[in-house]
């Protein structure tokens, strides 16, 4: 893309970092005061950029929010992808991917709040967009293994339930306890495609790998 001769690289890096800072500011402001109460002033203040710069990158607050959701989803997908290996059988792959995603969300409560809460309240279409992204990805794991499709529980509902459980923990200010939800979230991720029995088995495995949920621990 960039020519060797043109001095475009440093500018790109500058733009990238500005964009990154804007997105971070949006995540923080939404966590602190909700999307509805967030103003462009909050975002440009948090990102330490000018209003003009903001409007060069984004059309408006909603455009910026959508980009923020996309950026968070990308991070989530990367966490899921690196958590499992291609050789894993589907149930194990789903469990590992779920653990990877939940660990990321537990380490970034503001991001978890945005994906599980703000995205839902701002516009149901946002959720629909990433539901369509995530569910086929999970489904694909089973298809690739040549497993027959059977009807178990509803994957769309399972997705919404997982989202609600995560939101509930974040709402309670218990992002550190998010990993204690691993058995339930893994259950919801496996059950639609492999059924209750397999889901229980994977939930048990996840429970063993889950850290002690008690608040005491490393300071």
């Amino acid at each position, binding site marked *: 893309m960039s020519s060797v001769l043109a001095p475009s690289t440093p500018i790109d890096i500058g733009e990238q970092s500005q964009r990154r800072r804007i997105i971070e500011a949006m995540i923080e402001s939404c966590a602190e005061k909700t999307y509805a109460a967030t103003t462009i002033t909050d975002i440009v203040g948090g990102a330490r950029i000018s209003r003009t710069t903001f409007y060069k990158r984004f059309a408006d607050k909603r455009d910026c929010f959508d980009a923020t959701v996309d950026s968070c989803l990308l991070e989530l997908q990367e966490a899921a992808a690196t958590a499992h290996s291609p050789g894993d059988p589907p149930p194990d792959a789903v469990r590992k991917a779920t653990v990877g995603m939940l660990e990321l969300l537990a380490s970034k409560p503001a991001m978890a709040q945005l994906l599980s809460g703000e995205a*839902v309240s701002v516009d149901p279409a946002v959720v629909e967009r990433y539901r369509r992204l995530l569910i086929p990805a999970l489904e694909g794991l089973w298809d690739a293994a040549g497993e027959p499709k059977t009807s178990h*529980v509803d994957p769309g509902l399972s997705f*919404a339930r997982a989202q609600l*459980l995560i939101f509930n923990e974040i709402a*309670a200010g218990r992002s550190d306890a998010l990993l204690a939800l691993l058995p339930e979230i893994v*259950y*919801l991720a496996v059950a639609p495609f492999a059924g209750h029995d397999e889901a229980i088995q994977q*939930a048990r495995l996840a429970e063993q790998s889950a850290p002690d949920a008690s608040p005491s621990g490393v300071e």
Partner: protein
Amino acid sequence: MSSSSPEDLRKWRLPRGRHGLPRELVTRSQRERLLAAVVRVTAAKGYEATTVADILEEAGVGRESFYELFDDKRDCMLAAHAILVENLEGKVRAAYAEPGPWVDRIRDALGAALDWFAADPAAARFTLVELAAVGPVSRARFQAAFGSFVELLDEGLDDGPGPELPRATTLAVSATLARVYEEVVLGRSADLPSLLPDLTYELLVPFLGEEAARTEQRRAAAG
């Protein structure tokens, strides 16, 4: 505070003109009219667009009386929300407390929740969707309500099946809320009761496994 169902909130009216009613009763009536009004106006216009003037007009109450009873629009909304959630909880608790096998009780508790949301689409939208616009306090409100429903189901689990997951009741509440929320957002609250068989299945799978849950789904469909 007496718990008033959304229907009660709507019906409460005072005779016009000089009625000679005790002041306490007038204030109570004004309060309930304002609470009913904030539900209807917010559900129709959205929280952001709703003004105190809208609420006054809908309730037929003066500005001065409003500010004697509430700090602001948000205060009024949160008061109405508390009454609605308390009312819903009462309905679910009553259904769950009926004598009978646990699977029937949890199905009937689910049915009571679906009926409640279907009976008043404005109250449903207000309780679930518009609450988020109030700000971070809505998260605490949501969490408190979620927690009390989990507790309610846990209390009545004594004669129920031993679930294979540590927090199966949390999963049950999440299934109900997630589906109801979706239907309410899409403006389909009135159809919620028809989802009873499918949701009964979703709720019971973690407790009973798929085959037994399928049997209960068929039972729920047969009425």
